[in-house]
């Protein structure tokens, strides 16, 4: 391309570097949010994958049962009767480790570890942790002295050395275990993999978890010569498996983790793309300005013989450069953001899905490349419109501004029609009976884009109302300010749309979170009828792993005997295999209380509860029904030790505890079928202290504390005993933690929009320099110029805020009723309060005013002589 042509055409950005800088920052922020979120998500998933692989080693297959594990006898059958030497038994679970006496960590700061119990004789071909070449483990000590080993870095963090004793809490019971050796990770992968790992002898682990002869699983390494046809090798094993036990491949665990968190990650990704969308608006804005302001230059170039294609290409190349610079800046910011976000993402994953410790944060090259491509792509897409505008430039020196604006005003009906069409297409995506999330997000984005296209028309309508108001308040200058917004609609429209979009995201997310929180709060109030809840720390840690029973019938009898305790109900929570895969089974012994604690969404309570209590039916939670497409009257088969049993679905209850969902069965039936008398948690109902129903009959804090202390003293150990108030508070705290990342993203989207408005207003005021120069010549003081510009930016903020409220509410309705349902299957009640709407309006006006400060300052400082001289 010709050098002088490029120089003439691109002189604008050299003359106004700030405008170019705003665009670059907009892209950079958008790309940074995307890279940050993907990096944090990916790091959390990789951490899970890595730690899974650490305990998997060279294993090719796992033999797994339900959460009660695999009968220990099965290993004997495989090893001795079938002669499968390539098998090894494993006991795995989570424990808490207290820091050593020399540790700088506070005494109460316990850390969660994965405890792996292995058979030292069968182990050598499976895992490297006990390899004598990389470890200094006293194997005899491991077996004979109930010793444990851990990685060197973990030992140093805990300030323990071989020979020291570690305090390990299992199922609420503390144990002192001797450190008999350390294994040293050889690389970053191993360091991550062993960050939360304790290895011990299988016998020790069985004793700690109270499994008796039971084991968690049996690992298999199919010999290399049999790997071509593993099924042939595995067939005799399959034939020997009892009901409820199956063979799975190790990668299925990571795949399950990925599947489990898919909706969560997709939601975050969508939010990060929303930030990029705001960034794209920003580029569109700047490129439009750049083209419009350069029309005379472009016209002259056309008159001198530059082809329209050359001008089109120049604008696109400029956009690509802005995109590339923004991406180059955004990628390192995103990598840093990933490090900030990863803890929050990992916390949510821990709270909602599975245990993971992220010690290595890395953003893969693919994510960085995707960020760069998205940045440049967004810039090119956004610049396409302005480039087409440049393409249409007539070969004459200048096009009248008024004519240009007039053309845009005439195009408003068309833009509105396009907006309505986009919104209709988006609504179709949302209303069609589809279930996939990609179509839901596409629908959401189309609706948002469609509504953004309505901005010019709605701005004209609103300004029609606001202009007389501004005139009444500030006289001719007020009307001047208001009309300037309409007169420069080609510029203000985009700024309003960008700000509206960001504020709408805030309204949408706020209303969604508020509705969600309100629903969960009401559900918690309803489903926590007891006064005190007793469980083990493990039950709270990882509901998807083997959960040893915290209590037994004797413990419950003790609890029932405590002074002040009226009733005790219990639940056993286990994972069992079913016709739809592994499911979380809750075996309750509650009867009439359950009727209020589990509110039915589908099913007639008069029929559902008796059917459930008979034991031939189950109740399933709403997300479970959604996930597995199960409806009332259909059957669900559960694998029990005594064979597969089919249960009819008698009711579907509201439940927000997990997105995986749960199945409710009577404890009586569970005990009969599974022969497991363990108890995961108990609920204590205290005696009412007052007979007067007018008086609040809830037990006093002192009474709760007294019974709690009595229970702790009677049961010993480190059980978790919480009042329903505390439990509710903690649950809501977890809920709030879950939305911390969302909050950060929302903030970043607003930041992008803020830069957008700043860029738009700066460019707008730059363009209005001559007008303001005239006003200064007519006697407007710098302070009045300031007021004028600020009134205009305030109006832009007001219009954006007013438009953002309905758009935000539409967005939240889509998130609540479509995205959330298709992601998690939860019914949420939409709650709208004035607070987020008022806050949004304040945010919009505040952001616009703040963004207007710089151009207002700049214009008020510009010499009128300079402004009148023009560019």
């Amino acid at each position, binding site marked *: 391309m010709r050098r002088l042509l490029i120089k003439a055409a691109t002189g604008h950005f050299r003359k106004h570097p700030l405008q170019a800088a705003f665009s670059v920052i907009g892209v950079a922020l958008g790309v940074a949010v995307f890279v940050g979120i993907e990096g944090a998500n990916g790091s959390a998933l990789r951490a899970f994958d890595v730690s899974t692989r650490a305990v998997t080693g060279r294993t090719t297959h796992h033999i797994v049962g339900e959460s009660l594990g695999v009968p220990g006898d099965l290993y004997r059958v495989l090893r001795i009767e079938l002669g499968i030497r390539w098998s090894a038994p494993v006991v795995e679970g989570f424990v808490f480790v207290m820091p050593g006496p020399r540790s700088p960590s506070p005494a109460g700061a316990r850390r969660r570890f994965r405890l792996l119990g292995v058979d030292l004789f069968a182990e050598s071909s499976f895992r490297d942790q006990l390899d004598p070449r990389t470890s200094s483990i006293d194997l005899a000590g491991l077996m004979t002295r109930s010793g444990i080993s851990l990685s060197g870095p973990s030992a140093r963090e805990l300030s323990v050395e071989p020979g020291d004793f570690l305090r390990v809490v299992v199922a609420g019971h503390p144990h002192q275990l001797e450190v008999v050796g350390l294994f040293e990770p050889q690389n970053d992968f191993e360091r991550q993999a062993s960050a939360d790992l304790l290895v011990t002898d299988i016998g020790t682990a069985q004793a700690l978890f109270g499994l008796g002869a039971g084991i968690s699983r049996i690992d298999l390494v199919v010999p290399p010569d049999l790997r071509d046809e593993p099924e042939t090798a595995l067939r005799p094993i399959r034939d020997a498996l009892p009901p409820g036990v199956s063979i799975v491949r190790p990668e299925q665990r990571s795949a399950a983790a990925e599947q489990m968190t898919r909706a969560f990650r997709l939601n975050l990704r969508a939010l990060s793309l929303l930030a990029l969308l705001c960034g794209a608006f920003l580029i569109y804005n700047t490129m439009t300005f750049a083209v419009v302001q350069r029309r005379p230059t472009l016209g002259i170039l056309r008159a001198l013989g530059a082809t329209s294609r050359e001008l089109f290409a120049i604008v696109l190349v400029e956009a690509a450069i802005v995109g590339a610079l923004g991406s180059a800046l955004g990628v390192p910011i995103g990598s840093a953001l990933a490090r900030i976000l990863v803890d929050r993402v990992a916390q949510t994953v821990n709270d909602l899905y599975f245990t993971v410790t992220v010690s290595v944060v890395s953003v893969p090259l693919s994510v960085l490349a995707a960020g760069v491509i998205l940045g440049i792509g967004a810039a090119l897409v956004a610049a396409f419109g302005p480039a087409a505008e440049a393409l249409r430039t007539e070969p004459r020196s200048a096009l009248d501004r008024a004519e240009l604006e007039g053309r845009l005003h005439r195009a408003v009906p068309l833009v509105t029609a396009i907006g309505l069409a986009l919104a209709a297409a988006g609504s179709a995506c949302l209303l069609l009976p589809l279930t996939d999330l990609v179509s839901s997000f596409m629908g959401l984005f189309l609706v948002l884009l469609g509504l953004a296209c309505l901005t010019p028309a709605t701005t004209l309508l609103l300004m029609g109302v606001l202009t007389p108001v501004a005139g009444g308040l500030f006289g001719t200058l007020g009307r*001047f300010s208001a009309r300037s917004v309409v*007169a420069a609609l080609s510029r203000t429209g985009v700024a309003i749309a960008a700000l509206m979009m960001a504020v709408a995201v805030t309204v949408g997310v706020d209303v969604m979170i508020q509705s969600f929180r309100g629903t969960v709060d009401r559900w918690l109030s309803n489903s926590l009828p007891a006064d005190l809840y007793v469980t083990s720390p493990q039950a709270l840690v990882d509901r998807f792993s083997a959960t040893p029973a915290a209590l037994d019938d004797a413990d419950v009898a003790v609890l029932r005997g405590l002074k002040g305790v009226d009733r005790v109900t219990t639940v056993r929570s286990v994972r069992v295999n079913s016709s739809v895969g592994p499911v979380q089974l809750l075996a309750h012994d509650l009867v009439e209380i359950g009727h209020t604690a589990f509110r039915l969404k589908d099913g007639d309570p008069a029929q559902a509860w008796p059917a459930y209590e008979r034991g031939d039916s189950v109740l399933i939670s709403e997300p479970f029904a959604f996930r597995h497409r199960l409806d009332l009257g259909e059957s669900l088969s559960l694998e029990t030790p005594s064979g597969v049993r089919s249960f009819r679905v008698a009711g579907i209850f509201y439940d927000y505890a997990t997105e995986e969902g749960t199945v409710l069965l009577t404890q009586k039936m569970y005990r009969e079928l599974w022969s497991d008398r363990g108890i995961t948690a108990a609920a204590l109902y205290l005696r009412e202290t007052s007979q007067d129903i007018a008086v609040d009959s809830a037990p006093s804090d002192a009474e709760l504390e007294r019974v709690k202390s009595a229970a702790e003293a009677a049961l010993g150990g480190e059980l978790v005993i919480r009042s329903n108030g505390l439990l509710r508070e903690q649950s809501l705290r977890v809920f709030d933690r879950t939305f911390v990342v969302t909050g950060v993203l929302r903030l970043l989207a607003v930041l992008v929009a803020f830069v957008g408005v700043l860029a738009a207003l700066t460019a707008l005021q730059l363009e209005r320099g001559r007008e303001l120069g005239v006003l200064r010549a*007519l*006697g407007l003081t710098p302070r009045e110029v300031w007021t004028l510009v600020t009134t205009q930016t305030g109006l832009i903020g007001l219009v954006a805020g007013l438009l953002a409220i309905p758009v935000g509410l539409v967005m939240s309705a889509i998130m609540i009723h479509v995205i959330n349902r298709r992601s998690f299957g939860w019914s949420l009640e939409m709650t709208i309060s004035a607070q987020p709407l008022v806050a949004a309006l304040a945010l919009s006006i505040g952001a616009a005013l703040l963004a207007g400060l710089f151009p207002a300052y700049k214009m008020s400082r510009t*010499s009128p002589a300079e402004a009148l001289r023009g560019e």
Partner: protein
Amino acid sequence: MRGDPFIELLELSKSYQEGDRTHVVLDRATLAIDPGELVVLLGRSGSGKTTLLNLVSGIDLPDEGGVVVDGVSLHELSERERTLFRRHRIGFVFQFFNLLPTLTVEENLLLPLELSGRLGKQERERALELLDRVGLGARRASFPERLSGGERQRVAIARALAHDPDLLLADEPTGNLDADTGREVLDLIDSMTRQEGKTLVMATHSREVAHVADRVFRLDHGRPVELSDIDLVPPARQ
């Protein structure tokens, strides 16, 4: 015997930096203009006419020397004081009309009155009367984009006089108009300022404008030099 001058330029100097070079626009310029006088400043493009008007209006400040208007030393005033002086005492007519596109003709007209805080009933009637006098009374609700160049400049003249200033500054008021329209506009400026008894300083590069002036100056090497009638006769007729 002349009385006190209305405008005095006292050894006025102004220069601009252009890269490494300093471009001197006004070099110790001295001039005195009487009240009610109509003065025309001639000069080629870039000779410093606009700069001189900017200094007289207080829009710009001199590097050296000073400007006194009606006894007020503008160069000694603050930015705000100069702006307020301009607001109340000076009217402007520009080459490119510079009407505010988002205000109607009437609103453009009333803006200086509103700025000076004198938008009463009487003042409004007087301003609208001015609009009638420039022949655009029927177009008061129109936006500037609907007017021709000549009409826009007539509105600008009415606007410049709307708040009853003592001094009218016109910068190439016919420079963007065809010859016939330019003459009409010039006659209008002449008649209206004389009727209102205003002082007028008009910058132009057109010698034809000179016939309306009481005195004509040419900016020569940064200084105003008064031209005689002989100087003003076009070369072909001399």
